[in-house]
């Protein structure tokens, strides 16, 4: 981690700082909505929730649930009424945004998007515009929970990858570290003080959190293991038996990036929308012929787990498309646990290998 500068933000000045950031940015910060915590635009006096991880990930900043790609309108030629032209108008530009208060796992989710939507091979202009316009002010995690497993996937409670600023809670406030050039620019605020020896306190806080994490099992065998059990439908039927095939895991996931494109409109005018889609849905792979290559929830859950821990790493130099935030585990109405499935697949594949060896 490159730490170019450190500052200190006293906790009572947090609101003022966010207000300052709001002058030039749309600030999305975790706030309570009913019993849930969502990233919502910050308005003065808004109460920021940092003592538990947000229910929703901050992904809407770079990947909104609905994004208007274009508007269309069919216009009749007055000279030749049989002729209809389609008039197109492009969507709005991406607003300058600061995502405040995500935990490192939530922020890191964007890295999985980058490899797909902003790679040297292909760039998605809508995504790239939002990504370029968005800064991430991440708060290091000091309270990992029962469903957390960031350290299984090569991350940790103070992982700053993907962030521009990393805040670490210390007595009375936060130590603020710039971890990118764009983050540096945010450190000019008069509300920030020099960090001094609070940096050492921050290091201590983070070391304690890292030490408190239970040991992570080795999941390096997941990539091959999941490939090996791909055709073992008995396995997938068993692990997906309780799945109700809703999309909660997918829509709560900071790394799930699949979308659908539809034209929505009445009569002669409408909008082309890109919306979140999810591979747990029957319609996700439903073909126009009526054939569905993933007809059961077992096929679909296999895809979700396999994609994150096997197919995606195979395409992207071993990077796992899971940030270990645990939202899919917490948010699942029936507690389907992706950790359990990955571990079971590794064991199952190993057993199958042994059996083949004995034959």
């Amino acid at each position: 981690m490159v730490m170019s500068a450190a500052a200190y933000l006293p906790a009572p000045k947090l609101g003022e700082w966010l207000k300052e950031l709001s002058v030039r940015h749309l600030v999305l910060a975790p706030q309570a909505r009913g019993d849930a915590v969502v990233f919502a635009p910050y308005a003065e006096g808004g109460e920021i929730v940092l003592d538990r991880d947000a229910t929703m990930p901050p992904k809407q900043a770079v990947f909104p649930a609905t994004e208007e790609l274009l508007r269309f309108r069919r216009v009749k030629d007055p000279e030749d009424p049989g002729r209809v032209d389609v008039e197109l108008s492009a969507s709005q530009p991406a607003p300058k945004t600061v995502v405040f208060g995500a935990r490192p796992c939530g922020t890191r989710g964007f890295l999985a998007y980058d490899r797909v939507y902003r790679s040297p091979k292909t760039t998605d202009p809508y995504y790239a515009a939002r990504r370029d316009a968005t800064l991430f002010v991440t708060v290091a995690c000091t309270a990992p929970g029962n469903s957390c497993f960031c350290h299984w996937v090569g991350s940790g409670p103070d992982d700053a990858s993907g962030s521009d600023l990393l805040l670490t809670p210390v007595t009375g406030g936060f130590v603020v570290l710039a971890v990118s050039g764009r983050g540096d620019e945010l450190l000019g605020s008069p509300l920030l003080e020099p960090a001094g020896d609070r940096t050492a306190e921050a290091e201590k806080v983070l070391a304690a959190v890292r030490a408190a994490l239970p040991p992570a099992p080795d999941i390096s065998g997941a990539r091959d293991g999941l490939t090996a059990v791909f055709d073992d439908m008995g396995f997938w039927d068993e692990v997906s038996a309780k799945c109700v095939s809703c999309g909660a895991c997918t829509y709560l996931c900071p790394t799930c990036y699949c979308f659908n494109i539809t034209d929505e409109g009445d009569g002669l005018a409408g909008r082309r929308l890109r919306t979140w889609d999810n591979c747990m849905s029957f319609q996700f792979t439903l073909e126009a012929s009526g054939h569905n290559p993933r007809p059961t929830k077992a096929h679909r859950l296999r895809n979700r787990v396999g994609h994150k821990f096997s197919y995606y790493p195979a395409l992207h130099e071993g990077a796992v498309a899971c940030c270990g935030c645990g939202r899919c585990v917490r948010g699942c109405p029936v507690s389907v646990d992706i950790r359990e499935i990955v571990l079971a697949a590794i064991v199952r594949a190993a057993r199958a290998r042994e059996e083949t060896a004995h034959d």
Partner: protein
Amino acid sequence: MPILAGKELRIVGFLCNWCSYGGADTAGVGRFSQPTDLRIIRVPCSGRIDPLFIVKTLLYGADGVLVSGCHPRDCHYGQGNFYARRRLEALKRFLPIIGVEPGRFEYTWVSASEGQRWQQVVQGFTEQVHALGPSPASAVFGACREIPDEKGGPRVAV
């Protein structure tokens, strides 16, 4: 010129083909003057009306919905309006929980010969909806989608 010209609200009527649509026709043939807020959608039978038609209409910009079918025992298909009555009454009692005032939805029975009665129903219901004013749905959920005019130009329908 209608008194309410320029201040019209949007009222949608679902009318069964056999009785109420005929009743509305009779009213027209009889030249009974009526408020012009109502737009009629003809359906085969009041039993064909999915309560969700009404919910969707109210949520997407209508200020009132009127359903009218054959009088009980007069259904062209025998029983359609009996089933409809149960559904529509349940819906009517349910709607207030989403913030739709009870007066924005009514159902009634008008036969094909009751032109005069149709006039009274439309008059009464239109007045009732006007007393309530525009539905809160547009203010709460935003104006409904753009509806292009005949030449394809946009016209925001509020």
